[in-house]
């Protein structure tokens, strides 16, 4: 189904990383490490970036432990690594947001000190951050020119808009320059991020998990843009957890583990399996084992449910679904077709305008979240930073947040911090959450580890129904595997699982029943065993069974 983007000749000349100890003989060293600059040489590509012996520690973690990295003009380097391996940290150092403790950075052969994002921008370095760096209450055009060097005192926003439209036409990134950021979908916001780089004519692009929140179509668009920019002589460092993207996007792969480079490969010489092994340090099964499907009584039932989204527009239009004990009901659909609202209505976070929700035969339409939690419903929300975790509270407190009302975490209304810590230690161990301590404020964990913590808490608190919205988004493959196995384990224990995902492969391998949502309507419900990717894809695009578009 997916078309491979056009390929440019793979970088034939790449350089080995030398880490601090001079180790790192994993690939051919074609340029002498200190050799003359290759600029202008028809054969050798100019070396745009060279980082040497980069070290950076945060309280309790060595996030970069002597990392070396090079990037040549016209090259796309994929940076792989588990959650918390230090990918974002390294890139934030290159982008001037973090100051390294030690190490050197050379840009186009010159040794530089990057003290601030401003310095980085002046060197042609642009970064798309893991979480959007956009000012919500400003327009696209304002966001694009914000902080721009050489901007006149009174910026000519009309000219800016023209240029944005020009760029969006050229790179096929359509977006309205006058729209406010808060009005845009996640995919459109990502386009704005890319437009910012293009507008600033950055030629060293850092893309930190840009596809984590994108639909497959949007990811493809992005891949086309990246290839196009590479063709124009720019270079990119691309972080992703999706192996197929590594294979299609990159010329070269570098794998980090615990702040060190553990491997470096030409993309053409490797395969997803090997990369996964290098990343996690063990074999990763891309398949989940499930017990035979023996559904019980319906746990969750929805009848004719309608609801509106944050902007007051209809998001759910008469949804009827049921999810039985021991069943994983997969909700397929392109993001923004009502999935989030569906999960929120079920968990009591959003009011249903019409229809009926019942859990274990008790009506819970518009009941309070607490009363729904008390019915044994657990929720892994889409927006983990806002709804899933309290950033300024400790890991232990975040993990205890569902169970603190009752024993053993509290007794007689008084919480017991030592029990919090015991619970935290157990869950950290069980779910392999990388954190310096149980008392670290959770916002300091890497994105993937925050997600794991939420998952650990919710699965622990689940009594009868687990609502999981994009649970593997942003997770590394080891963690993704663990999450999928946990979901299946819950199902095998006889719980009902409502799984929202955009990843068709995930749905096909995990779910028992698949329902496709499109514009707030259920387009079809069928057993996963009878489904195929093609059919789901068509329904997701709004084609009726039989091929007609609604």
């Amino acid at each position, binding site marked *: 189904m997916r078309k491979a983007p056009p390929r440019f000749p793979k970088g034939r000349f790449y350089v080995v990383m030398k880490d601090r100890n001079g180790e790192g003989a994993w690939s051919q060293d074609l340029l002498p490490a200190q050799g003359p600059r290759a600029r202008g040489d028809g054969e050798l590509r100019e070396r745009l970036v060279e980082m040497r012996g980069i070290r950076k520690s945060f309280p309790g973690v060595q996030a970069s432990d002597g990392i070396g990295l090079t990037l040549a003009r016209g090259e796309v380097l994929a940076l792989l690594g588990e959650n918390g391996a230090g990918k974002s940290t390294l890139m934030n150092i290159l982008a001037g947001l973090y100051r390294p403790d030690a190490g050197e950075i050379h840009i186009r052969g010159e040794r530089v000190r990057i003290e601030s994002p401003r310095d980085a921008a002046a060197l042609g370095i642009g970064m798309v951050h893991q979480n959007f*760096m*956009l000012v919500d209450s400003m327009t696209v055009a304002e966001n694009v020119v*914000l*902080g721009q*060097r050489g901007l006149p005192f*009174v910026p000519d926003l009309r000219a800016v808009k023209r240029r944005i439209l020009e760029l969006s036409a050229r790179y096929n990134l359509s977006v309205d320059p006058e729209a406010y950021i808060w009005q845009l979908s996640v995919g459109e916001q990502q386009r704005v991020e890319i437009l910012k780089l293009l507008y600033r004519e950055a030629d060293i692009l850092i893309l930190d998990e840009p596809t984590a929140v994108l639909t497959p179509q949007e990811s493809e668009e992005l891949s086309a843009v990246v290839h196009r920019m590479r063709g124009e002589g720019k270079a990119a460092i691309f972080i992703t957890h999706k192996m197929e993207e590594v294979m299609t996007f990159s010329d070269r792969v570098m794998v980090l583990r615990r702040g060190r480079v553990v491997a470096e490969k030409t993309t053409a010489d490797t395969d997803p399996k090997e990369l996964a092994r290098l990343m996690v340090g063990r074999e990763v099964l891309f398949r989940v084992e499930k017990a035979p499907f023996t559904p019980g009584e319906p746990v969750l039932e929805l009848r004719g449910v309608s609801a509106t989204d944050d902007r007051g527009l209809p998001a759910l239009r008469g949804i009827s679904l049921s999810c039985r004990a021991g069943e994983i009901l997969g909700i397929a659909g392109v993001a923004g077709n009502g999935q989030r609202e569906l999960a929120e209505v079920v968990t009591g976070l959003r009011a249903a305008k019409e229809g009926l929700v019942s859990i274990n035969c008790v009506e819970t339409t518009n009941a309070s979240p607490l009363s729904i939690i008390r019915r044994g419903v657990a929720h892994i929300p889409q927006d983990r930073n806002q709804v899933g975790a309290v950033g300024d509270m400790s890991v232990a407190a975040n993990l205890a947040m569902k169970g603190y009302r009752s024993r053993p975490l509290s007794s007689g209304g008084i919480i017991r911090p030592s029990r919090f810590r015991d619970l935290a230690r157990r869950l950290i161990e069980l779910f392999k959450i990388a954190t310096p301590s149980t008392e670290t404020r959770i916002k300091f964990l890497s994105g993937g580890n925050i997600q794991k913590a939420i998952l650990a808490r919710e699965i622990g608190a689940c009594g009868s129904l687990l609502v999981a919205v994009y649970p593997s988004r942003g997770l590394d493959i080891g963690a993704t595997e663990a999450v999928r196995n946990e979901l299946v384990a819950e199902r095998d224990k006889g719980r009902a699982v409502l799984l929202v995902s955009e990843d068709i492969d995930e749905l096909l391998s995990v779910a028992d029943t698949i329902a496709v949502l499109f514009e707030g309507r259920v387009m079809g419900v069928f057993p996963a065993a009878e489904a195929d990717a093609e059919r789901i894809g068509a329904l997701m695009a709004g084609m009726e069974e039989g091929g007609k578009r609604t």
Partner: protein
Amino acid sequence: MELVTSILAIAIRAGTSLVYATLGEIYTERAGILNLGLEGIMLMGALSGFATAYYSGSVALALLAALAVGAALAAIHAFLTVTMRANQVVSGLSITLFGSGFASFLGQRLGPISNNHRLVGLSGPRIAPIGVPGLSELPVIGALFTQDILTYALYALIPLAWFYLYRTRHGLNLRAVGEDPQTADAMGVDVFKVKYLATIAGGALVALGGAQLSLSYTPGWSENITGGRGWIVIALVIFAMWNPARAVWGALLFGGINAVQFRLQASGTTIPAGFLNMLPYLATIAVLVAMTFWESLSKRIGAPAGLGNAYMREEK
């Protein structure tokens, strides 16, 4: 007609100091810094303005002194909250406590020996209202043209402040810093510099508002000359929804209420002054309620999202 014109004239005169302070605080808050030191800064502005005028005889010097004192006090606030990352509420309140206490202390020490070292009861140079020939004779709008130089300056300052905030590079940076300092930083805006400058410039304007009181509106120094205006300004900023162009309406409303109150009291009314003073706050609450009703409205013109938070680069 006569009555309306005169009430309007008083309203504008009473509102001028509020507009200066409101503009100052809007700029400060737009950078994400809440400065509750307003009352103290206004008092210090009023005191330094009057004392300078009294001894130098120069109104221009007096205004400069007020600006400098306001800037200095605000710089302390900026240092504490931006560099030291102290709690903004605590720092602001300390500045108010310090400013009011220190102003009252100086008011009893800076005066001439003849007046027992006190400034109270002295009269010094003042900024007198100047009528614009012709225009000041007009009914109603004439009220706009019988004002002092500080008020006339506002007629230019308000549109300029608006233009600066919404149309210039600095204004763009300022708004971004107040909304989302992390993004602004990542985009190459010098967050520290912007926060410092906005806080200091804002403080200077606030002090100017104070000086307008002691040099023009109620010339001379008296204890608590501001009468709690610093607190009212905090409400007016919300009322203005952080938009300089709207600052004038809240200030006029409050000034108008003041003016009407004078008239009413002169005519021996039974409505207590405290009740009338409460009205701007009621209006503010009404605006807040309206803002929560129109959620989309509050997204665009609500409080700067980063208001009150300290920002540090390597802290998430």
